């Protein structure tokens, strides 16, 4: 017995593989998942834009330049100006702040609440679980954009209400997924062992279940982030999300800008490129993250 333990200790000491550090892991990730790495870089770029937006905008995104209306992209206005003479580049950069804020908040609130609800529902089962699941059935019967529209119509059009509507959708989705994961983990012997040792429900949920559902939560958050940004942009496009004068990518493409797009096509291009790049980056990174965190899906 002792010999075996010593042998294991010695083998562990041998370090058959080089020690993994952050740089090594990142380089391996870039080599093995080039699309994911590209997504990661785009994502870092978008977050940097959002965080440092106030310092890097060439002009005040709300400032009107009446003499410079609908100027095509040039050295002064790199992405041109809109029908009020506002600098499109500055508005696109400021729009990153709104989109990333919406993405972060909806994922944190929605996935957070949904994960807690899903864990409780999947762990305790019974009547509570039945009620929660039937309610989620009902919520998921609505096409998501339609439900978001209905909720925003009920609360009134604003950025905060769009966040509430999207977070609500995310929560119902997360609750369903995390409930499934919790039920699977709950069947494991180590949970039975903890129960037999007299661990309380709170301890089992926080020390045994939660660490094992973090991978599905992370995967879900990465998938949800891109979709949330798209839903907010769609709501703003329909005039029910971010309200003027706050610059938002969806709003920039909506009716007020559409009128001038034929004579100033740059108004239609840049906000769309920004949304697409942000969501593409998130989705590519999310896909790679899913592959890494979920061994069953590796290589699929």
């Amino acid at each position, binding site marked *: 017995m002792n010999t075996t333990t010593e042998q294991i200790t010695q083998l562990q000491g041998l370090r058959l593989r080089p020690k993994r550090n952050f740089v090594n892991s990142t380089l391996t990730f870039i080599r093995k998942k080039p699309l994911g790495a590209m997504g990661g870089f785009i994502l870092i770029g978008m977050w940097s834009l959002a965080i440092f937006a106030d310092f890097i905008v060439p002009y005040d995104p709300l400032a009107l330049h009446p003499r410079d209306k609908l100027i095509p992209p040039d050295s002064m206005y790199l992405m041109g100006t809109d029908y009020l003479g506002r600098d499109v580049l500055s508005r696109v950069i400021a729009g990153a702040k709104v989109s990333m804020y919406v993405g972060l908040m909806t994922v944190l609130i929605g996935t957070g609440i949904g994960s807690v609800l899903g864990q409780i529902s999947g762990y305790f089962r019974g009547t509570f679980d039945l009620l929660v699941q039937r309610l989620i059935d009902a919520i998921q019967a*609505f096409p998501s954009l339609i439900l978001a529209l209905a909720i925003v119509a009920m609360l009134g059009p604003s950025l905060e209400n769009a966040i509430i509507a999207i977070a609500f959708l995310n929560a119902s989705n997360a609750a369903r997924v995390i409930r499934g994961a919790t039920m699977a983990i709950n069947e494991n012997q180590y949970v039975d062992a903890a129960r037999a040792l007299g661990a309380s429900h709170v301890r089992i949920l926080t020390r045994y279940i939660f660490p094992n559902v973090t991978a599905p939560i992370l995967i879900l958050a990465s998938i949800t982030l*891109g979709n949330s940004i798209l839903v907010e942009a769609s709501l703003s496009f329909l005039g029910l999300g971010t309200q003027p004068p706050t610059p938002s990518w969806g709003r920039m493409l909506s009716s007020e800008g559409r009128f001038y797009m034929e004579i100033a096509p740059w108004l239609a291009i840049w906000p769309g490129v920004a949304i697409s790049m942000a969501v593409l980056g998130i989705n590519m990174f999310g896909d790679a993250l899913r592959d890494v965190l979920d061994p069953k899906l590796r290589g699929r």
Partner: protein
Amino acid sequence: MQQYILRRLLLAIPTLLLVSVVIFTINRLIPGDVILSLLGEGGRLTPEELARARRELGLDKPLPLQYWDWLSGFVRLDLGNSLFDGRPVTEHIMLRFPITFELAILAMIVAIIISIPLGIISALRQDGLLDYGSRLFAIAGLSLPLFWLATLAILFPSIWWGLSPPLEPTSFFKNPTAHLYQFLLPAFILGYRLSATNIRMLRSTMLEVLRDDYIRTARAKGLKERVVVMRHALKNASIPVVTIMGTQLAFTMGSSVIVETVFGLPGTGKLVVDAILLRDYTVVQGTVMLFATIVIFMNLIVDLTYGWLDPRIRYN
């Protein structure tokens, strides 16, 4: 199988009832007085006029009674009258639903045409250049906003060739070419988005199936690769894809809001957006209930298809 169908049908009823409660609650939680917000000039109304308007719309009754009235009306396909123009909501829906339905069917056809070859190639050439290209194409489909693609699809032909989609919908029987021209572009954009999910799904299931023993057996028998892929692998790999397409109808309904708004197609999607902007709550309530009912029944059909394709599910 009959028992399974009956069980699934019975399970759909409580979901439908809950959906109706959610819709009713959302509509009744609207802050402020619905009548005042509807008329927009509530200050000029006398209390008597206000009370009469409430009575006419049945808003003076207790909430459970209002819900019962609305639900029993829905069962009889009477969804009330539009608060904006007074016409029955059912009439609005009947007039506009065929447009959304046609758009959805065309989009699904486009999605099949795009996704089957790309899904197969992607799986057969795993981690090759074609696979990366197809995956990028699919992931872009999930990332590019529909309203942006639709805007560009209208804008550039208009700038380059002076082509713009007709403002009024043309009947297929009067002018089939103009009708198809009007529907094809939006259907293509929506279809591309749907194909993105299908490509990823088909690639994933094909990869799984191609590693199965019966494929190895088929190859060992000396069958041509084309036969192995098309007859043995694709047939089995497409079961989940075919069934997932049923659930895509929900997405198509939701996206019709965007596509119809941009292309000016007067379908149910545009109806719901216009009704929200006009605060026409009876129309919103009725249309959203219709969408949810369709989704529940499509999910039911998908479940039944699964049960039919895979008997293990039926007996569980």
